[in-house]
């Protein structure tokens, strides 16, 4: 992992078309500004992981067991 020190107002460039700015630092919180192409998706890590987990679990639902649950309720 590359570890850099930046100050407020400074930035880093990733791969030529992604820029990450340090906008503000307050205590233990950092505000970042991110310029990236629209096809590059930027997610908060914990949000991304939760969505992937929900998707993964949904993809594991089997037709037979889902039938049983919905038949019981419909």
């Amino acid at each position: 992992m590359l570890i850099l020190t930046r100050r407020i107002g400074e930035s880093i460039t990733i791969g030529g078309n992604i820029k990450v700015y340090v906008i503000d630092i307050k205590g233990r919180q950092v505000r970042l500004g991110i310029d990236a192409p629209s096809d590059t998706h930027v997610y908060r890590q914990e949000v991304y992981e939760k969505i992937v987990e929900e998707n993964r679990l949904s993809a594991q639902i089997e037709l037979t067991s889902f039938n049983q649950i919905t038949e019981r309720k419909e």
Partner: protein
Amino acid sequence: MPNGMIGFPDEKRYVLLEHRKGSPFFWFQSVDNGSLAFVLIDPLTFKPDYEIEIDPEDSAALELSHASNGIQTLTVVNISSNPPAEITANLLAPIVFNVSRRRAKQIALYQSPYSWRHPVSTCENKKP
């Protein structure tokens, strides 16, 4: 679906199949990977006041500017692992469809009061 489902970037083409005639549930079946399918539901069938805000970049990706009608939103369904099995829907990462353009995108909502596992109430499982 140019970006695929979040976490599943390789599968981009899907078909939407009704679970059963008249059922609010759908199977979002990957065309390229027969073993990959997600269960989806129209959130309006159990949460009629569900609202989302689509940011300009997602709107552009979906080519929504010319399609004020023909937008459909579906949410990812899960079943709680603890008995009794409860059906839930992830209202924070809906899949927005531009029906006429046959494009779809799963979007992450940040400024939203909704739940990852909103219960799909049993008495409203049927479409009106």
